[in-house]
C-alpha cells in the first residue's frame, strides 16, 4: 500500500524515476545567490492513507516564510520547519525561482489580501492560490490547478531549479544552503 502511495505521489509530482532525485540531490547550486530575492514552490505528493489524492503545494518568499493554504499552517511561518514537518508525511519537490524584490513584494501584497490560512476550497485551492500569487508577482504560469502540474510547470521557468526530498528526508544540501534566506524576518 505504501509503495503504491509513494508511486502515486511521484506520479502527481511528475517524478517517475529515482534518477531525477539523484540529479537534484547533490546539486551544489553554484548559480544561486543565497543573498538574493527568490521564491520557492513547495509541492508535496499524496500522503499514504489520505483522502486527498492530489497532494499539496505552497509558496515561500525571501525573508517572509511559507504560505501554505488549506492545511492549517500559519502564513509566513518558518520554511525549513515546514518542509521538515511535511517531510515526515510525503515526498516533496521544491522549485527555486529567481525573482526580483519588486516581484516578491507583489506576491506578499497578494497574500496580504488573503489572510485566512485555510481560506481555500475545491476550485480556489492551494494550487490555484499559489498560481495567483506567482502571477501577481509577474511569474508566468499556466494556472494548472493541481500541485503536481504546477510543480512541473514552474520547473520549466528559466533559471529555476528543482530539489527532490523523499519522505523521511534528507533535505538536499544545496537546498539547505539557501533556506535561511526564506525564513521570516
Amino acid at each position, binding site marked *: 500500500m505504501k509503495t503504491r502511495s509513494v508511486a502515486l505521489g511521484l506520479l502527481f509530482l511528475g517524478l517517475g524515476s529515482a534518477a531525477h532525485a539523484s540529479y537534484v540531490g547533490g546539486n551544489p547550486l553554484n548559480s544561486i545567490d543565497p543573498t538574493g530575492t527568490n521564491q520557492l514552490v513547495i509541492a508535496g505528493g499524496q*500522503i499514504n492513507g*489520505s*483522502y486527498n489524492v492530489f497532494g499539496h503545494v505552497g509558496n515561500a518568499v525571501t525573508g517572509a516564510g511559507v504560505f501554505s493554504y488549506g*492545511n492549517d*499552517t500559519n502564513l509566513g511561518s518558518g520554511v525549513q520547519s515546514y518542509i521538515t514537518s511535511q517531510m*515526515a508525511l510525503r515526498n516533496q519537490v521544491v522549485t527555486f525561482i529567481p525573482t526580483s524584490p519588486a516581484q516578491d513584494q507583489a506576491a506578499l501584497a497578494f497574500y496580504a489580501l488573503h489572510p485566512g490560512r485555510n481560506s481555500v476550497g475545491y476550485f480556489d485551492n492551494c494550487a490555484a492560490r499559489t498560481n495567483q500569487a506567482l502571477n501577481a508577482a509577474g511569474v508566468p504560469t499556466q494556472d494548472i490547478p493541481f500541485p503536481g502540474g504546477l510543480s512541473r510547470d514552474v520547473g520549466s521557468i528559466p533559471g529555476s531549479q528543482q530539489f527532490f526530498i523523499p519522505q523521511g528526508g534528507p533535505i538536499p544540501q544545496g537546498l539547505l544552503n539557501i533556506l535561511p534566506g526564506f525564513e521570516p524576518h
Partner: protein
Amino acid sequence: MNTASKLIVGAIVLIPVLYLGSCGVITHQHEKSFAQVHDGDTEAQVIQVMGEPTDRETPSNRLAKYGAPECQAPCVQRLWYPNKLSLAGEAWSVELDGAGRVVHTAHITSP
C-alpha cells in the same frame, strides 16, 4: 436509443450528481455543527455538537493522513472529523488542552 443505452447514460449523469450532492451535504452538515464549537468548550460539548470523532490524534501519535502540522502544546489531543467523500481531503479538527478544553479549531481544505 434503446433501454440499455438510456440506463448507461442515466447512470453516467446520475453518479456524479449523487456524489457531488452527498459530498456537499456532508460539508454543509459539518460546517453547521463546526460553527457551534468555540474555544473554551469542553470535549463533551464538542462531541454533543459534532458527534464522536473519526480519529483522535496526540503529540506522540501524529495522524499523517490529515497533513496538518503536529499537535503541539497546548494541544494534547486533536479530534478529527473528515469528509470521507472529499477527494481533496477536507476535514475539521478540534484541539483540546490538558484540561479538555478547546484551544484551536480548523477546517482543513487542502492537506
